[in-house]
């Protein structure tokens, strides 16, 4: 299935990135960065549901059902005609609505402004969070005295 809107944006990878970032964003943080909600019409009003998360047998084999997670999805259209989709983690309908609005706006002239004002700060906050945990984990790495590094490439 092709999506004229996404081909207009030209870069599926970029859209995947911002949709993922919005899905993982903390709703309160997103609301601070994007307080306004431009006029929109819902094509699929915000809906809370569950997605079955799958793992793989032995990490590499056949898929199995691990358990569900809550998500909220939403599809809307802005007055300019741009359509935005959102599937975000959790049960926050305002979060899903905002994410869909941003997805729609990112396909318009507002993209550059929105990237600087909303997406970049979100990405920075996420990178900082991840970096802090990685650094704490690194501090708990065991340094064996007998250890020879590099033999295993």
């Amino acid at each position, binding site marked *: 299935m092709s999506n004229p809107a996404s081909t207009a944006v030209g870069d599926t990878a970029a859209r995947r990135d911002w949709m993922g970032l919005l899905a993982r964003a903390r709703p309160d943080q997103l609301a601070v960065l994007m307080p306004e909600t431009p006029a929109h019409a819902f094509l699929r009003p915000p*809906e809370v549901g569950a997605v079955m998360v799958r793992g793989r047998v032995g990490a590499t084999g056949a898929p199995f059902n691990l358990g569900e997670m809550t998500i909220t999805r939403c*599809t809307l259209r802005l007055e300019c005609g741009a*359509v935005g989709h959102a599937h975000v983690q959790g049960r926050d309908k305002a979060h899903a609505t905002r994410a869909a609005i941003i997805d729609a706006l990112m396909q318009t002239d507002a993209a550059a402004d929105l990237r600087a004002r909303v997406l970049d700060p979100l990405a920075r906050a996420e990178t900082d969070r991840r970096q802090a945990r990685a650094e704490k984990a690194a501090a708990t790495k065991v340094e064996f005295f007998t250890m020879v590094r590099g033999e295993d490439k």
Partner: protein
Amino acid sequence: MTPEALTGGFADAPVQAARAFRAALDALSRPGVIHTVAGATPPAPLSVAAGVLLLTLADATTPVHLAGDHDCPALRDWITFHTGAPLVDAPSAAFAIGRWGALAPLSRFAIGTPDYPDRSATLIVEVDDLSATGAHLAGPGIKDHAHLSLPEVAAFRANRALFPQGCDFYLTCADRLAGLPRSTIVEAC
């Protein structure tokens, strides 16, 4: 996915789906009674009533078969977006939609098993005319008798003979629908 595929769903799903479900339930409980439903505006050639039935009854766990002209990209996308139902061939379908001629032969559809007669298909038959005239209906849910404009009689008699297995039917025309469960005895008028 075409932009049209994204429109025409329920605006207030909990309320509209509940009303539509009541109509769908009543239609099968009282064969021959015609109900008017609202809330869906699907792409052609799907009728409003068939669209309402799909939005209400279909989801990712109910495979849907589109027969004949109904098997078109606009409708496939609309059903995928609004219901998440997988689109399948006739034998795997929980729901099948099409005009009477396109759905035939009915032997393609699941009729359930003796242990699980519920594992059968429900057919949504799009008709040009739906009125309480024509074929004679009797059986559960019908006081004395009822009439319904069926596309034919023989197929429904054959389906009744499979009871408790067999298919169930909705007949849809514009925003109106009627039900014909496998328990109904159909005779020519």
